[in-house]
């Protein structure tokens, strides 16, 4: 165990939180799945805890263990296309402040889905009401609901789009009463 190696491990362990998964696996952001797998194997060969089994317990061994767990984490995120896409978005959206993939809890996912719809509870409620009126072909009522939702959130593009869609349906409705 030479000093150079110890330095390398220490540097890596300390830098982990500043590295994205591509940097951890030492691959290009455009790497194919096969390249990612190869990189996982290569990095594992170097940082596998079994390789350092005989090291005394201490900061170096802990550092290696920490790195090997992060290598696994990078691999399971990047080998899955869906997760990889999410991760890329997350890194970009946070301007590289968030570099670890956190799968939001189901609860949070539900909340974030709601928040994608609208910021206010009243707006979201009216929007849902409008959708069910659309389903019943009650386009006049639907248009009213979407417009009322817009009263709460004037700049909500989703509400606006649906209000327009309902208005379009009214125009296209030639049935007699």
């Amino acid at each position, binding site marked *: 165990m030479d000093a150079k190696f110890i330095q390398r491990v220490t540097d890596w362990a300390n830098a982990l939180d500043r590295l994205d998964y591509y940097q951890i696996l030492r691959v290009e952001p455009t790497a194919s799945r096969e390249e990612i*797998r190869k990189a*996982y*194997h290569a990095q*594992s*060969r170097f940082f*596998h*805890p*079994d*390789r350092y*089994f*005989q090291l005394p317990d201490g900061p170096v061994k802990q550092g290696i*263990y920490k790195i*090997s*767990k992060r290598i*696994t*984490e990078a*691999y*399971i995120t990047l080998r899955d296309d869906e997760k990889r896409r999410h991760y890329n978005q997350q890194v970009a959206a946070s301007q590289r402040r968030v570099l670890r993939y*956190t*799968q939001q*809890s*189901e609860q*949070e996912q539900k909340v974030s889905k709601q928040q994608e719809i609208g910021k206010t509870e009243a707006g979201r409620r009216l929007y849902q009401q409008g959708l069910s009126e659309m389903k019943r072909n009650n386009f006049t009522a639907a248009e009213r609901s979407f417009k009322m939702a817009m009263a709460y959130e004037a700049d909500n593009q989703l509400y606006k789009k649906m209000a327009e869609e309902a208005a379009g349906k009214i125009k296209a409705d030639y049935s007699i009463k």
Partner: protein
Amino acid sequence: MSSNEHVLGIDLGTSYSCVSIVKNDKPMVIPNKNHERIHASVVSFIDSGHVLVGNEAKRRLLTNPKHTIYSAKRLIGRYIFSPEVKKAKVVCPYEIIEGPNHSVRIKAMDQVFSLPQISAFVLKEMKKIALAYLGQEISKAVITVPAYFNDNQRQATSDAGKIAGLEVLRIINEPTAAALAYGFGKDLNERVAVYDLGGGTFDISILEIGSQTFEVISTAGDTYLGGDDIDMRLMDHFADAFMEKYNINLRKDITTLQKLREAAEETKRAFSSQTRVHVHLPAIAQDEKGTPYDLDMEIDNHTFSQLTMDLIQRSFKVCDEAFQAAGMTVHDIHGVILVGGPTRLPLVRDAVKHYFGKEPLLGIDPDEVVSLGAAIQGHSLLSTQTQAFLLDVTPLTLRLATVGGYTEEIISKNTPVPIDRTKLFTTSRDNQERVKIRIFQGESNRQEECELLGEFAFSGFRIAPRGDVQIEVTFEIDSNGILNVRARDPETGEAASTTVSLSSGLSEEEIAYTAEQLDEVELVS
């Protein structure tokens, strides 16, 4: 590595165990003084101070059924209310009783033993065999477990090692060990499936073997399927036929049942090389007048196949699962490694050949390959020139209990290890002072359909309205596949953690105590 430092590779099987070492850079099975290479995982209590282990002990199943413990692996790490334990209580002649916290205990010769203690006797025997062969005591070991063993079962196996006075360097998965023994030093680049039908459990693992790396892509299993089940089918067949012919129930008497079990196992083995087996048990029962009757019958291949085909087919459902998880089909596989005694049966080999569309790999001993792999792994750990790196996965999804009897997934099955995953949770009631962290393992989001691994209370976070406090829960699976859980309040920094152990498991003190207790019981030979 100093030349005289060895590590035992122990395959602790349901029916048989095997011990190996690496000597002069070659893995080898250590035979006992009778030149036997595999040893029955049977523990027979002679009196309170003496116990017999191995093939000799197995012979005592007939003469001393109440105090001769077999298939303990089927019970290790399980709760008393689990289906497997209930089944064992019906069919096993030895006494199975309830211990603290729904654990299982075995009573023999007026002494009560935990399952890790029973397995420790087998491990001690392996140690003894190595000592006799090498003339030196070896206390380091790598022990294998079925890939589909849950955390409780792994912990209990590791405890057994400690009780036996072994330093358990690693607990590794049986199919992974087999792949290691197959691919070690060959510089392969291929995908293999390991079909492991043991005495009590079935595992399938799909591996990608690269230069020095053995990556498990997926694993699946059934801890209720093995050669024992084939024996049971044959026993039932014998007993039913006898009932029909003489109207005598052979299932009533323990000794008769043991004779049937023995005959069933012999019949099964005979089918490895024969297509027709003659079973003859003279004077196995008598009628009320005392007239003795023989069990005398012939079974052909066709009947044997009919009796057991559904068991074999069940294994392929599990294989389907593994392939699905790997995102592969049988065509992606270059070779199939067969592990476990029952894979010697032409019936099994043919079915495997049919399923995978290719001949299984030759030249691999299905009884010894796992122990050889364990020895290689042990040797690698102590070597500075390690040439094999296992990249294994966790077989079952790990979950945290949430309100309303539900669970939330923290680490999904087939995730490579070591790994840690963190999720944020919150309180469910206003001004809640503590939370119970309950850990489950299984594939359902309902708590009652999963196995409870353990629980601990966490407090010390800010008292606040519900939903206002954050609790960070981290699950970590270490290189032995064993789970550690931490809870932390990111605001106060207050933290609590535990190595998850079965609530009925053994504490360090208990392990130390039972190890001492075991030392008072002598292994005889």
